[in-house]
């Protein structure tokens, strides 16, 4: 039998700056080279192992797991996993090493190696030969000194002779043979087997360039200065059996041993042995019986009378849950939800869980799937391999953190973790790093960043032209290298972050299944795999997603309760006409989901009249339907402009609710089932392809299957094309109906609050910034347009948070002030609660504010209660400047505990005199407001200029503009948006004193005025009015900055 070379030492790009190719690429190239197996050894982790394994198996390459360990003393020890014990040991070892270090640091101690060596194979190489470890353990250190062949003896003692192989690498580099001869001698002396590897760092030779750039990034240098830090040649690519045999022609056993060793390494990530934690049930119950009990108990509370349909649905669901062995999962999620309820934390299940009556009865979701005719199979079906997906929406901020910390508390630091989120090199970051490595002038790099600023706008320009615009001539000698590198590096992993909410937990130690490490956020532990990897491996994930709007709503409900007008989400009437009217007028700034420009442009056409209309409204403005050309047919049909038709009469029951237009993922699955006789299994495959945005190939495969099945059923080719097109568009942005319902509940709830509890709503909205589409400045102006009085910040009135004064008044809190520390503001409030301040001097003595904070408060008018006007306060606050030396500001404890003597010192300066300073003019006040709070309670800056801009239309007047006429609009840019699906068109929203006006810019014009559009705060746009259904859009012809010394505005939110 011929044995083939197996690469046993390859690093992927998940070694973060130490590998230049995706694990998937390595697997594909291994398959091209007909390699029977291959090992991925990423540095200090198994980050890329799962991705590699999936692709390798798809290509008939057997994946082997391993890792390069950074050892104490600086050497790198490659280890390979032989069996399950070895894998668990590796995970534990890495977890230990990571958790005791800061994020990104990991050092394995030599003395802890023996405890975790079982099941691992060590490769002894040149890096370990030269190790003179400064080991921390004294005994170990002595052994290092005493042993004649030091490290190799240690490795043999630790792993066992049969588990240590001597690794030889040949890269055609002068001097390496001397090292190899030494290694061969050592192997002979200690009767160890030789094994050849290529120390692969990239799939193909061109990966060397990427590695050289990564070296520069790692070493903080550039290619011209990196010198000998760079690679000598490009030989660390994946080599074939033939190539490796030629290189090791004198040592054929080193090649053959790779295959022999690979045969021993039979561990596969598929056999992980993961178990979800069991729920501790009361005595006399199993998890099944307990779940059944609480579900029926919940059903009695949820339904006035349990109908036969509900009963049947619950029985079916419970039977399936029991059959699949998921009762523990439902109980644990129920337990988390209970914890939230007990601690007054709003919680709402979203996603496909809303299709389940069991989840509804357990209180996990607020949506009744029976009433809403939702498809349970979308949530759970027999063929489903993975765990069901229950996402919990929680109020963002402290409340969500409390839930996360509770889970850590219950399952331990090694039992629960956040899933990782891989941060990749994108346009700007890739260009920046490559530019630095190529030693481009920083001005070019900065200009590139500015030009392509604000959320990495998708580009309509060729990369060459972009970099040319940034100041590098097209014929620059380094331009070709830049382009090559940009394409190679774009998308490669840059570092590991944590997922916004995905948590994984485990029955036993989670750290036995995946290495855990510290997140940069204190108190958080993160796993080395992202949510897709975890899902593939059957590790159950509970998504604890923070929604700013949940926080807003909970705060608003609390404010309502405090004011004696209690309200909660469950008791909001679902048919409130005023709420629907507000939506129909697109008066939705601050409302969840339907506040965006695109949503606001659709609302007047959609004219929601019932809750289900809101569900459709939420789902309709998605990139998917736009790409699939689906929005207009729905709206046209709704308005009666287009006849109601179906792709096929058989689809009428499926598509009737959405007027024949498929809008939800559930409908897609049903279409496949009806038109192509897809089985539950196949529908599940389609669902995974739809939600699995990672693989286009997966989607193409399932689409081909669907097409073939429809062709077999003699579906007309044009119908097939239409169905496939709509399904493909959903692959990118699938939106399940249950999810839309969950979001619509929040959208409707927040709209109701805006209409009926405006002060509580706006106060809570301001307290939870930043969130949503608009800045606090826009929210304040919107509140004022709704006849709400927004009282400015005042030290004798304001709390840290914004508060409700009465039905028509909101008092701004200190949280809107820039550069005022929360603890200082809270101390201020506490001092005021003890005793009111009687003068500015009293205030200054009792509240330990830094000078800058005092200045800011004076400038924004918060001290006007002590002085006649802002400048008088500014004059007075400066009085103690030289006393800073006596009392250092900012030290609260010192101030609070020893305040008396310092008080006297501070009070000593001359008594306040009348300020000689001029009173601030109105424009000066507005400017000061924006400088100190990024908002103003005074007039909008555009109002101050209105008289000097007679030709500019106000936003409120735009509906009166004649369609097709040319007009000018102007205002503060509050949003720039360039949706990926809008073919390069840019939407700009300008705010003036009366509202928001919108303009659309064509790609060519955008390129012409790129910097003006992306950098200027105020714009003047001239263009043609496009007015349909009272939705006005200006098609831009001319654009220029609106500059005036009085114009100070808020920053824009920019989106793709």
């Amino acid at each position: 039998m011929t044995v083939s070379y197996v690469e046993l030492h390859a690093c992927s790009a998940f070694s973060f700056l130490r590998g230049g190719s995706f694990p998937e690429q390595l697997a594909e190239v291994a398959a091209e080279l007909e390699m029977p197996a291959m090992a991925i050894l990423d540095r200090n982790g198994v980050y890329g192992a799962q991705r590699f394994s999936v692709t390798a198996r798809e290509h008939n390459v057997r994946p082997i797991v391993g890792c390069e360990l950074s050892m104490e003393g600086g050497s790198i020890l490659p280890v390979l996993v032989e069996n399950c014990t070895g894998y668990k040991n590796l995970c534990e070892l890495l977890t230990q090493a990571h958790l005791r270090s800061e994020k990104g640091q990991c050092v394995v101690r030599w003395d802890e190696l023996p405890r975790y060596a079982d099941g691992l194979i060590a490769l002894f190489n040149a890096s370990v030969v030269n190790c003179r470890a400064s080991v921390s353990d004294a005994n170990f250190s002595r052994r290092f000194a005493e042993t004649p062949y030091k490290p190799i003896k240690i490795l043999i003692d630790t792993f066992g002779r049969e588990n240590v192989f001597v690794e030889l690498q040949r890269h055609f580099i002068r001097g390496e043979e001397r090292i190899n001869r030494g290694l061969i001698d050592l192997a002979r002396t200690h009767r160890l087997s030789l094994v050849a590897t290529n120390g692969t760092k990239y799939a193909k030779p061109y990966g060397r360039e990427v590695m050289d750039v990564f070296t520069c990034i790692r070493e903080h240098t550039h290619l011209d200065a990196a010198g000998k830090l760079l690679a000598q040649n490009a030989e660390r690519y994946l080599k074939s059996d033939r190539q490796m045999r030629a290189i090791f022609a004198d040592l054929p056993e080193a090649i053959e041993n790779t295959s022999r060793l690979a045969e021993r390494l039979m561990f596969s990530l598929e056999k992980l042995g993961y178990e979800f934690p069991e729920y501790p049930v009361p005595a006399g119950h199993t998890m099944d019986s307990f779940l059944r009990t609480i579900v029926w108990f919940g059903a009695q509370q949820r339904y006035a009378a349990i109908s036969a349909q509900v009963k049947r649905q619950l029985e079916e669901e419970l039977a399936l849950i029991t059959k699949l062995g998921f009762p523990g999962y439902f109980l644990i999620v129920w337990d988390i939800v209970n914890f939230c309820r007990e601690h007054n934390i709003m919680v709402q299940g979203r996603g496909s869980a809303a299709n389940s009556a069991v989840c509804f009865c357990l209180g996990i979701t607020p949506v009744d799937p029976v009433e809403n005719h939702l498809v349970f199979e979308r949530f759970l079906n027999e063929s489903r391999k993975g765990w069901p997906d229950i996402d919990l929406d929680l109020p963002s901020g402290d409340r969500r953190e409390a839930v996360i910390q509770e889970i850590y508390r219950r399952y331990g630091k090694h039992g629960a973790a956040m899933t990782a989120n891989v941060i990749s090199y994108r346009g700007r970051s890739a260009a920046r790093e490559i530019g630095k490595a190529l030693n481009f002038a920083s001005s070019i790099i900065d200009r590139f960043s500015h030009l392509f600023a604000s959320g990495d706008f998708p580009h309509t320009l060729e990369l060459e032209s972009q970099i040319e615009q940034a100041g590098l001539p097209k014929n620059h000698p380094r331009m070709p290298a830049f382009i090559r590198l940009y394409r190679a590096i774009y998308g490669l992993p840059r570092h590991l972050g944590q997922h916004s909410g995905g948590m994984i937990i485990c029955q036993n130690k989670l750290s036995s299944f995946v290495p855990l490490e510290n997140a940069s956020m204190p108190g958080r532990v993160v796993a080395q795999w992202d949510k897709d990897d975890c899902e593939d491996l059957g590790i159950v994930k509970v998504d604890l997603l923070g929604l700013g709007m949940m926080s807003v709503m909970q705060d608003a409900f609390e404010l309502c309760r405090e004011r004696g007008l209690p309200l909660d989400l469950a008791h909001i009437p679902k048919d409130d006409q005023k709420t629907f009217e507000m939506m129909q007028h697109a008066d939705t700034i601050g409302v969840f989901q339907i506040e965006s420009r695109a949503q606001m442009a659709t609302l007047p056409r959609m004219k929601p009249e019932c809750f289900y209309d809101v569900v459709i409204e939420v789902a309709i403005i998605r990139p998917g339907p736009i790409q699939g050309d689906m929005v207009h047919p729905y709206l046209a049909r709704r308005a009666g402009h287009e006849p109601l038709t179906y792709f096929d009469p058989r689809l009428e029951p499926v598509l009737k609710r959405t007027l024949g237009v498929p809008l939800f993922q559930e409908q897609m699955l049903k279409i496949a089932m009806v038109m192509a006789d897809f089985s539950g299994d196949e529908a599940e495959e389609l669902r995974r392809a739809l939600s699995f945005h990672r693989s286009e190939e997966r989607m193409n495969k399932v689409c081909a299957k669907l097409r073939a099945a429809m062709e077999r059923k003699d579906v007309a080719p044009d119908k097939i094309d239409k169905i496939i097109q709509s399904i493909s568009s959903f692959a990118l942005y699938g939106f399940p109906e249950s999810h839309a319902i969950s979001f619509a509940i929040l959208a409707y709830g927040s709209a109701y609050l805006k209409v009926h509890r405006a002060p509580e709503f706006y106060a809570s909205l301001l307290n939870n910034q930043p969130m949503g589409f608009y800045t606090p400045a826009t929210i304040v102006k919107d509140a004022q347009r709704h006849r709400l009085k927004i009282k400015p910040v005042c030290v004798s009135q304001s709390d840290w948070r914004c508060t409700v004064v009465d039905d028509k008044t909101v008092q701004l809190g200190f949280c809107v002030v820039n550069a005022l520390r929360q603890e200082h503001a809270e101390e201020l409030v506490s001092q005021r609660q003890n005793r009111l301040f009687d003068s500015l001097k009293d205030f200054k003595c009792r509240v330990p504010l830094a000078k800058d904070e005092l200045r800011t408060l004076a400038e924004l008018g918060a001290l006007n209660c002590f002085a006649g006007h802002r400048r008088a306060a500014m004059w007075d606050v400066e009085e103690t400047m030289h006393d800073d030396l006596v009392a250092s500001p900012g030290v609260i404890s010192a101030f609070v505990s020893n305040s008396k003597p310092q008080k006297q010192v501070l009070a000593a300066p001359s008594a306040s005199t009348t300020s000689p300073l001029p009173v601030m003019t109105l424009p000066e006040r507005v400017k000061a407001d924006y400088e100190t709070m990024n908002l103003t309670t005074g007039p909008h800056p555009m109002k101050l200029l209105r008289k000097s801009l007679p030709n500019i239309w106000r936003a409120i007047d735009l509906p009166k503009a004649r369609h097709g006429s040319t007009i000018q609009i102007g205002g503060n840019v509050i949003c720039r948006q360039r949706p990926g699906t809008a073919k390069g068109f840019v939407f700009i929203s300008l705010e003036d004193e009366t509202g928001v006006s919108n303009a659309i810019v064509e790609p060519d014009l955008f390129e012409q005025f790129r910097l003006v559009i992306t950098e200027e705060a105020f714009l003047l746009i001239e263009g043609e009015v496009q007015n349909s259904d009272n939705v006005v859009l200006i098609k831009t012809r001319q654009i220029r900055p609106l500059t005036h010394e009085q114009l100070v505005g808020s920053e824009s939110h920019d989106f793709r």
Partner: protein
Amino acid sequence: MERSDSFGSTAARERLSKIRQILAILHKWGIHTLGQLALLDKQQLAARLGPEAVRMWERANGQSNRLLKFITSPESFEESFEFEKEIETVEPLLFMLRRFLEQLAVQLSGIYLVTKELTLRITFTNKQIYERIFKIPQPTNDVDLLFRMLHTHLENFKSEHAIVAVALSAHPIKPAREQFGLFETTLRNPHQLSETLARLTAFLGPDPVGTPVLEETHRPDAFRMEPFAWGTGKIDLNHPKTLEPTLFPALRRFRPSLGASVLLEENSPAQVPDANVSCKIIDQRGPFLISGNWWNETTWARTEWDLQLKTGELVLAYESEETWTIDGIYD
């Protein structure tokens, strides 16, 4: 004129930052003119913004003077001449330059200064200007010596265009009085060395003259030329440089390298049928692949072999861009 406290010192920078801070506060107060500042109460201003603000107030009210230090503008030691007729030979130029040097020497000697550097500027009929700086190894006003330096340089000077003007400027310095250490050596005649270097430069062009410095790169034998400077490389007795023991034999490089043809057998060199090193290869090590600078037009790559010739010589040969070269011979 210059501010009294030296610009750039830490104290000055701190003061500047303080002044900027005060100005920012004044602007926020709505004080934008000297008149507005002058109207404020001095004591109240002092209580709020401190002594620096008081100084500003006093200046605004005409109550203080800002101390300024009188600085004479640097004297220019330059002589120039525009020829009535274009000149095409070096003699009139040299004649003029000698006169310039004599003038400059008189001027500088009168104020006890010597010439440290000369700058020669020649303007051609096409308006282009040729400029050359001559560093004087040992500053002097010796006209003969300085003239010889210019003369040597201009001996091989050629131009396509006739000369219309010439200028010579001298950068003066106080004469050095330096005592050398016991073991320090100095050049017996720095001017002679300088002149020799000038002659070499004139003869070979500027690129190959200077001190070679090895480049920190994988490219074998890569070096750059730095201007020759006597005595800059002082020996650090505390950290003496030691040569790393190497296991490789020393390589005598052929300069320039020898082009060669190499016959290959099974992709390995087998024979060097060359006039210089014609011989059969009995053993070889390699190939060693090295490449670099892939990011710009100076990209390079070579495949090196160590070849044992039948004659007993061990040579280093490499192939680059399909051309074989014998780089050197091992000791």
